[in-house]
């Protein structure tokens, strides 16, 4: 059935749409080289391109061994020629594109000839594959066309090479980068509906709108690592986000900011370009990449907003280095003021509320809460901690490790046993992912549950949250905006003798594990929010938002 869906999916793309797609995909491909080391000389460029050609060529057909020698010679010749080619861009582009399209058509012919080559096509161009497959079904031509085809293919390849060589004038880079930005989006979305088609039956109807994100992530996994125009640092953290190695809104925000710093310091203004604007556009590309890895945390979007404001307000008649310095400093101050100092302030405030013989219950692993508890312990307060943990992330174990190594007396339970210990608890400390303008607290799934139980036992619930995590969005349940994690995470259990019976849930049309990342806690379940400003009721979020324009 997947197969059928696939073909359908491509059908709607249609022949003309296909070419457009091709154009983008290939353009991206061609240009990527220039962007990645855009300070390189024509020579290296030339050497690089043949490589590009080669793999296109191979993608076209593998048994062109006979020609490879010829190709080699061509390459050399090309590189010799390279420095003194000069024609206008759009021309080359067109040329290039025509070339591409032809190449592809050849490819399809060949594909028909022997399908196995297609499998060997590099993973970078799945769409191409689809197309080919489709073509394979339809087209049927005499096999002697093959040789001719190959020869043509090679020629195309060479032309293409020439074309690519000309894509060095920095003038166009700007523009190109932009539509790369677009193109990446496009490719992603187009990927999305492919990967969605097979997900379809395993969706919880309530969350159809969210699986989009999920699909994105899935698609990214299949995506090859170097995304065009995205700074290495961002690619790195992107991977770390999607693999959940960087977890927690603070950590994610910090990671992003440091990546941002390295971007700023590495960034070179393309000539005839304004530093900030070009930087901003590059940044946008990076961010789109990040959000394709995993939807941005509120903390991140706020931080970005803050940064961009400064970027735009930067006065233009400074030298690039001055600007760079300013921006870096700006990011630094954001980190220290909004995150570190805020953490300090909150910790100080909460310490005032922790007394000896307290039993403090906390959920999951909030960096802020950990800090607070450790500080309290350093101050020699005698208190116990009960760590409630929730599957599938089981962050609490990390928290437990930290606290126990610090010598704090800890108990550890799973969330469904929370009501078992709650009677003994004196305070509940919770971290937050974000505070919404209507006073709802958005946090890891389970937080709402814990605060509910705490309320049932009449225990005070303190949510600790730096004000930079406040956001204007309003939300009343966990459905409209949420994030869906990998459902298979729900299946893996490390504490049971045998594997869960759900292991092959994909086979059933009626079964769907659901792995929600966040939930929202209604304000009436929260006693107070501790911010660096003060102990506040949840409802005063909008006030804070107003008095803190930078957020």
């Amino acid at each position, binding site marked *: 059935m997947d197969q059928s869906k696939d073909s359908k999916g491509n059908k709607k793309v249609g022949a003309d749409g296909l070419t457009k797609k091709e154009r983008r995909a290939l353009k991206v491909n061609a240009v990527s080289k220039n962007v990645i080391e855009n300070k390189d000389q024509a020579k290296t460029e030339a050497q690089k391109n043949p490589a590009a050609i080669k793999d296109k060529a191979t993608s076209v057909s593998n048994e062109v061994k006979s020609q490879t020698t010829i190709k080699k010679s061509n390459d050399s010749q090309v590189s010799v020629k390279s420095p003194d080619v000069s024609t206008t861009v759009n021309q080359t582009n067109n040329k290039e594109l025509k070339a591409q399209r032809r190449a592809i058509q050849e490819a399809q012919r060949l594909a028909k000839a022997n399908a196995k080559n297609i499998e060997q096509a590099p993973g970078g161009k799945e769409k191409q594959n689809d197309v080919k497959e489709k073509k394979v079904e339809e087209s049927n031509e005499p096999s002697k066309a093959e040789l001719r085809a190959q020869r043509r293919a090679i020629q195309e390849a060479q032309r293409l090479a020439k074309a690519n060589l000309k894509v060095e004038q920095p003038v166009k880079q700007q523009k190109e980068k932009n539509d790369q930005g677009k193109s990446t989006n496009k490719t992603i979305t187009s990927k999305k509906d492919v990967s969605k088609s097979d997900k379809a039956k395993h969706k919880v109807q309530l969350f159809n709108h969210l699986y989009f994100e999920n699909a994105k992530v899935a698609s990214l996994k299949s995506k090859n690592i170097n995304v065009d125009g995205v700074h290495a640092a961002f690619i790195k953290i992107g991977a770390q986000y999607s693999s959940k190695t960087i977890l927690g809104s603070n950590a994610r925000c910090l990671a992003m900011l440091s990546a941002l710093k390295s971007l700023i310091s590495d960034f070179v203004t393309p000539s005839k370009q304004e530093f900030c604007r070009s930087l901003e556009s590059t940044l946008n590309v990076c961010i789109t990449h990040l959000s394709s890895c995993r939807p941005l945390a509120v903390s991140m979007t706020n931080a970005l907003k803050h940064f961009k404001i400064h970027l735009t307000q930067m006065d233009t008649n400074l030298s690039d280095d001055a600007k760079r310095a300013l921006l870096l400093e700006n990011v630094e101050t954001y980190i220290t003021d909004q995150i570190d100092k805020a953490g300090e302030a909150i910790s100080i405030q909460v310490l005032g509320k922790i007394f000896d013989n307290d039993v403090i219950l906390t959920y999951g692993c909030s960096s802020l809460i950990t800090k607070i508890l450790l500080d309290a312990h350093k101050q020699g307060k005698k208190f116990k901690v009960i760590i409630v943990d929730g599957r599938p992330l089981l962050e609490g174990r990390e928290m437990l490790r930290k606290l126990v190594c610090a010598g704090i007396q800890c108990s550890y339970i799973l969330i469904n046993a929370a009501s078992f210990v709650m009677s003994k608890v004196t305070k509940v400390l919770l971290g937050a992912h974000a505070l919404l303008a209507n006073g709802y607290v958005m946090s890891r799934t389970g937080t709402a549950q814990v605060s509910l139980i705490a309320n049932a036992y009449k225990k005070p619930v303190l949510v600790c949250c730096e004000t930079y995590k406040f956001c204007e969005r309003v939300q009343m349940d966990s459905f409209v905006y949420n994030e869906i994690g990998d459902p298979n995470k729900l299946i893996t259990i490390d504490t049971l003798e045998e594997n869960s019976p759900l292991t092959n849930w994909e086979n059933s049309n009626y079964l769907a*594990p659901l792995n929600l990342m966040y939930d929202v806690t209604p304000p009436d379940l929260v006693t107070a929010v501790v911010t660096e400003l003060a102990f506040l009721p949840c409802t005063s979020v909008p006030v804070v938002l107003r008095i803190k324009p930078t957020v």
Partner: protein
Amino acid sequence: MPESDDFSDIIRLISDIRHGKLYNSYDVAIQTEELIEKLISHGQWKTAQELMDLIKLRIEKLMTALPQEATSVNIMRHILKIIREEYDAGFKGRGEGQQSLHHLVTADPENDADDYSKPLSNLRSSLLDNLAEYKVELESSADNIAAQASEHIHSKEIILTIGKSNTVENFLKSAAKSRQFEVIVVEAAPLYHGHSMAVSLAKSNIQTTVISDSAVFAMMSRVNKVIVGTHTVMANGGLRAACGVHMVALAAKHYSVPMMVLAHMYKLSPVHLCSYEQDAFNVCASPANVLPYSSGPLLNKVHVYNPVFDYVPPELVTLFISHQGGNASSYVYQLLSELYHPDDYE
């Protein structure tokens, strides 16, 4: 009481329950019933009194050994009641025992109301008949409950349940015959019976979603009904249910979602909650299901709790469904007085 009475039967039952050979409460119920049946047919007893003593001794043993095990005690209690009734039936003129208020008032202390020592010729046979009936009742109980499913579930509903309860499973499946609805199964850590529940529901073509325990609150706002099984229904209408049910019940209350509890009659027991502490109420299983033993030096320092039960106060329960139909939790005391004789409560 004859000396020859060794408690081998009850001891074996105890060890079977403890070794987990009898896991689900239905098996326990049947085993107990058979046990008593044997006792009645082969045990050395002359009068109803003796028989009741024998049974009471067994109850005592069981309660000391497994304070958490209510089912089989309840069965025996009920059988005691049957015996009393048979005995009373045997001697006409003795009214409904304590049932009628008038009797209570008029009854003088010397009244032989609770003297069962007179020998009664056909007691044994008539008891056996009664037990046979009772057994049939037990066996059919599950189906009777399931049969009511269509009265409670309408189509396009979203039902939430937690863990695995055979009763709930049958209930939902029978509903699925006539209705289209969706089930959200909470996986119920640390044993994750919810998974197998989900699988078996999906097998009978019910649209099933599995969520982790932490997502209960998030999902609850869209749920139409919560349907759970229970381990025991306590005298005040509260539940001793699998760990996690309380959390679900609270969430249901918060969103005012009706919470239905499917309970066989033998789950009603005339015990009250003495304390939230474990003594006689809760029991903790091995922490290994919560934190793997391989976690290293951590374990030298940490207390890990893995409670098996939850206490759910009656006000969180909307409806009880037994094989006799639905009842509010406030009505449980009446059911109890129908099931057991007040003298057998303790």
